[in-house]
């Protein structure tokens, strides 16, 4: 990866070093736990040890008597809250049974880790000690953990709802799915489990709230500071002008901080009671238990085709494990995937049936990709399954069904309009890099040495750039608020620039990429363009960072605001040069006269006119160079590409190792190629993690087994290959920069590539499918079954009784030692 210097005014397209990095890598960044306020108190949360129970009593007296403890509150104390925690999706015409979720339980707990009390004191250690002295008496209730068992409604997660089935949602297009499948020459069916994962940001969540003089300031490790402010106004009845929310440096989110957190309310409410700031920093154990999880679907999938490989029908029946409550978007997640159900292919008849089901586990919500990885997994795995059934090369099957480049913009049977695409080009480029003939020769030679090498492809497209409001907002898909993004571009009197964005980065590199976009519109060095974010007191309403939306919405907002100012600059320069504004162009860092580039003004000189001299301006023009702008695009964007995974499977142990990864992504013209590479590296790692290593597991009693990084196996650098990335560039007509998102693409593409590669390695053994995660034991069990021994892979589902945990180690080491530990 080369880091390049860029000529003035032409920084876009160059891999400028990240402006964020010096402070981050020298430890000078200020994360939430680095912030301390005078008089600050600390909060610890008492969390349910039961997966399902009535709370009979809570005795706080012993905890209150401990040194330094200021208060202990339970749900009964917080009756003045005006609203429960929000779920922001109300699709027109769909009934959703929403269980009320309060920051502290009100007599009933429905998952392990549910908050039942908070302890406030003047010492961080003391509150944790005191929390152990809050005596909670539970009356345990029957627990339902398995999502398909929950669907039977024999055990209800919330008695008051009368059912665990929270909602049903159906979308169909192109005709009757049953008829289309019946008419298909070949139908392939699979039950695919897409298991529960964690976001596992390296910085856990954290909050500081300070209520003072009728106003509330909240620092939160969040992806959505403006939404948090909006919610506080609703929930605590404080007008928005009196609420300020600040997202300081945020150490990763992955969707886990796209949430209105119970702990935000707890800190704010407690601060109001006690008149002092209150801080809460999530522990890693809490993060694993009560930062929302992702995925967790059981999918029944059918794909129909003609014998010669034309896909004729595709049906997905998705059973979504919602967990015990709803976060901000919980029931909406699988629906987001449905929008790209047909992927890169022309599939005439499609249907998606989604059933949302409550269980006694923590809630699922958006984790990197949110619905799209699950849907892409189904589709891309099924393509390989179909190819095997048809005895056809899986790449040829893909090509045969690709939407041709000439057909864009392309409307899918669901009425979604893909903006642009050239799937063949990305696949061709990937194949050039891979050299499939050489691979097959190598595969054969390694097989004779007991190494089972396999290759897997995933040709994906996804929907991102979440906006436009008319499509996703209250009158469209039913989100509680339109999705757009704001920007302020402010040129200072000497020609440096401050940009405020309503996007809220937490690792992405907006400070660099957005600075490049703005700098080029003024012919200045990105070094003098400062990008500010994450503070509701500094900029207008913004929607935050998630769904690969920042560049194509927020970045475009910055571009448009800068372009408006640049136009004003041209008018000011024209006035000074006694020329027409149309004759002024940006050249070599100056707004100069066409044909006579020596005549012109730099941005600093223009700013001098607008702010300092303040007299030599065109007649009637307002002073200053500043623009506020809110951008709402006309359509989504649809990035696409081809990912290729090569794995080695140890034939004796079943262990899978990823040995090569080729990613060719198309997210439109690159603003900063290095930032794209970084997102692809992280995104693919996230997907490899799910495919091979990571799984959140609850046992049949609803206890979380994978509560630490010992057991929740995040891959490390040692497990991940060096990535080979490349790009094609197909402009999006959805925005003036032609850009698409890239933050989730790797994650969306990756899991089927891994599964397809493992199956490619094992097909000669008679294995055609294994559910993720492809752990060594599961692969070995599949091999044993294929060799006529054993019952096959252990089930993936939650709530299956496991061998005794007490002394064993789940993953790596002893996590629940009995006596004599240490």
């Amino acid at each position, binding site marked *: 990866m080369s880091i390049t210097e860029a000529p003035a005014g032409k920084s876009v397209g160059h891999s400028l070093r990240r402006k964020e990095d010096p402070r981050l890598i020298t430890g000078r960044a200020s994360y939430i736990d680095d912030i301390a306020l005078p008089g600050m108190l600390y909060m610890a949360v008492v969390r349910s040890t039961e997966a399902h129970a009535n709370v009979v009593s809570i005795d706080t007296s012993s905890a209150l008597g401990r040194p330094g403890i200021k208060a202990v509150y339970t749900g009964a104390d917080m009756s003045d809250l005006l609203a429960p925690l929000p779920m922001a999706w109300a699709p027109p015409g769909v009934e959703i049974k929403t269980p009320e979720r309060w920051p502290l339980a009100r007599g009933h707990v429905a998952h392990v880790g549910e908050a039942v009390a908070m302890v406030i004191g003047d010492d*961080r*250690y003391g509150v*944790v*000690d005191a929390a*152990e002295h809050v005596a909670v008496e539970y009356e345990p209730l029957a627990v339902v953990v398995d999502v398909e068992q929950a669907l039977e409604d024999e055990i209800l997660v919330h008695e008051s709802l009368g059912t665990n089935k929270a909602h049903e949602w159906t979308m169909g297009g192109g005709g009757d799915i049953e008829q289309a499948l019946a008419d298909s020459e070949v139908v392939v069916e699979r039950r695919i489990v897409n298991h529960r994962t964690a976001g596992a940001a390296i910085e856990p969540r954290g909050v500081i709230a300070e209520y003072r003089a009728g106003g509330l300031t909240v620092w939160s490790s969040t992806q959505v500071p403006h939404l948090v402010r909006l919610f506080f106004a609703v929930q605590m009845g404080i007008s928005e002008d009196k609420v300020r929310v600040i997202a300081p440096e945020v150490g990763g989110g992955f969707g886990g901080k796209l949430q209105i957190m119970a702990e935000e309310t707890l800190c704010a409410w407690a601060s109001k009671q006690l008149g002092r700031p209150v801080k809460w920093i999530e*522990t*890693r*154990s809490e993060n694993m238990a009560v930062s929302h999880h992702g995925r967790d679907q059981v999918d029944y999938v059918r794909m129909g085709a003609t014998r010669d490989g034309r896909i004729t029908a595709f049906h997905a029946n998705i059973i979504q494990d919602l967990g015990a409550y709803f976060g901000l978007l919980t029931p909406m997640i699988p629906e987001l995937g449905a929008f790209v159900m047909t992927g890169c292919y022309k599939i005439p008849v499609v249907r998606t049936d989604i059933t949302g089901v409550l269980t006694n586990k923590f809630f699922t919500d958006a984790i990197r990709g949110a619905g799209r990885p699950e849907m892409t997994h189904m589709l891309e795995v099924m393509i390989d399954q179909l190819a095997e059934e048809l005895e056809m090369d899986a790449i040829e099957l893909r090509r045969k069904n690709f939407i041709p480049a000439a057909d864009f913009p392309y409307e899918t049977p669901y009425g979604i309009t893909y903006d642009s695409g050239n799937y063949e080009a990305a696949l061709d480029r990937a194949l050039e890099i891979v050299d499939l003939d050489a691979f097959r020769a190598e595969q054969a030679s390694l097989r004779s040495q007991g190494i089972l090498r396999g290759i897997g492809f995933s040709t994906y497209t996804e929907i991102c750039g979440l906006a436009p409001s008319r499509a996703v907002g209250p009158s469209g898909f039913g989100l509680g608020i339109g999705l757009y993004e704001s920007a302020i571009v402010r040129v200072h009197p000497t020609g440096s620039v401050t940009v405020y964005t309503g996007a809220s980065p937490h690792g992405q590199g907006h400070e660099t990429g957005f600075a490049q976009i703005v700098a080029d519109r003024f012919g200045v060095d990105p070094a003098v363009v400062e990008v500010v974010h994450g503070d509701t007191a500094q900029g207008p309403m913004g929607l935050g960072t998630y769904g690969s939306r920042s560049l194509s919405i927020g970045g475009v907002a910055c571009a448009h605001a800068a372009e408006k100012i640049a136009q004003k600059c041209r008018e000011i320069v024209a006035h000074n040069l006694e020329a027409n504004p149309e004759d002024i162009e940006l050249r070599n860092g100056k707004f100069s006269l066409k044909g006579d580039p020596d005549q012109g003004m730099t941005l600093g000189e223009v700013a001098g006119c607008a702010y300092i001299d303040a007299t030599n301006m065109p007649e009637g023009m307002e002073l200053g160079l500043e623009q506020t702008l809110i951008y709402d695009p006309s359509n989504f964007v649809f990035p696409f590409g081809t990912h290729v995974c090569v794995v080695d499977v140890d034939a*004796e*142990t079943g*262990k899978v190792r990823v040995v090569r990864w080729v990613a060719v992504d198309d997210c439109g013209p690159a603003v900063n190629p290095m930032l794209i590479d970084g997102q692809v590296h992280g995104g693919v790692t996230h997907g490899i993690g799910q495919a091979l*290593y990571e799984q959140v*597991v609850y046992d049949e009693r609803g206890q979380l*087994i*994978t509560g*630490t990084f*010992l*057991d929740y*196996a995040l*891959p*490390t650098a*040692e*497990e991940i290959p060096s990535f080979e990335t490349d790009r094609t560039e197909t402009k999006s007509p959805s925005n003036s920069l032609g850009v698409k998102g890239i933050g989730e693409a790797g994650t969306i593409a990756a899991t089927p590539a891994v599964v397809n590669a493992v199956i490619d390695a094992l097909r000669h053994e008679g294995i055609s499918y294994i559910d993720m995660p492809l*752990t*060594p*034991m599961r692969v*070995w*069990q599949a091999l044993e079954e294929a060799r006529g021994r*054993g019952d096959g892979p*252990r089930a993936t589902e939650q709530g299956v009784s*496991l*061998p*005794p*945990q007490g*002394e*064993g*180690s*789940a*993953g*790596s*080491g*002893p*996590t*629940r*030692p*009995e006596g*004599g*530990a*240490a």
Partner: protein
Amino acid sequence: MIPGEFDYVVAGSVDEAIGLLAEGGADAKLLAGGHSLLPLMKLRFAHPSLLVDIGRISELRGVDTGDDSFRIGAATRHADLQVRDDMGLIATAAKQIADQQVRNRGTIGGSLANGDSAADLPGVLLALEGSVTVRSRDGERVIEAQDMFQGYLSTAVMPGEVITEVRIPALTGYGYGYEKFNRRSEDWAMVGVSALVKASGGVCEDVRIGLTHMASTPLRASAAEDALRGKPLDAENIAAAAQLAAEGTSPLGDLNASPEYKRHLAQVLTKRALTTASAA
């Protein structure tokens, strides 16, 4: 991830540590590298009242190389051992403990005192037939490896005793192999196998096999050893011996490995470790 309240004191010498430990009572614990104890404290699974820090006692750190043995100070770090290729098997195993940050802190004495059957060094000590020297107010005694590991996280080290030294034989003339199986490189062993083979004219004169995480304590694969001893060291005999590697074991199942899978792994890894050891 916030431990309960405890007292902390730094010991300047082994004798001082012994005194502090004795005065601290039943809930006093020694702290060396802290890579087993501190995580348990942060998870609030362990609640020591007093930590006696022995990590800065210089007499406890370092390796004395003798003619036919090595004397390893109890507070010697894994990172010190991983670079000692002259020490053979133990250096190879030390290289594979967790990750470098852990190896920079973790100590051999701490690992053996913790007695985790999933940890690397207990099984290695067993295969090497080394010993552990402990000291208390009552004096010094030596615990042979075969007597050291008594149950799940339970060793022959008594309350009030401090491990001062670990002795391992040089085993000149032995080839060795170490096979560790885990999901991620930094994980504990799902199963691990240490193998030492002494060959004479292509025949196995002696063989020792240590098994990691195949029961609540590390074990020797005696049946496999007996099957190979005295036999020509060819692939067939090695494979036949390895088939017996799980005899007499009682592995515990967990999320990632059933007992059946662990027995299978023990066989595969024993074959591999013996093959490496025989080739040396």
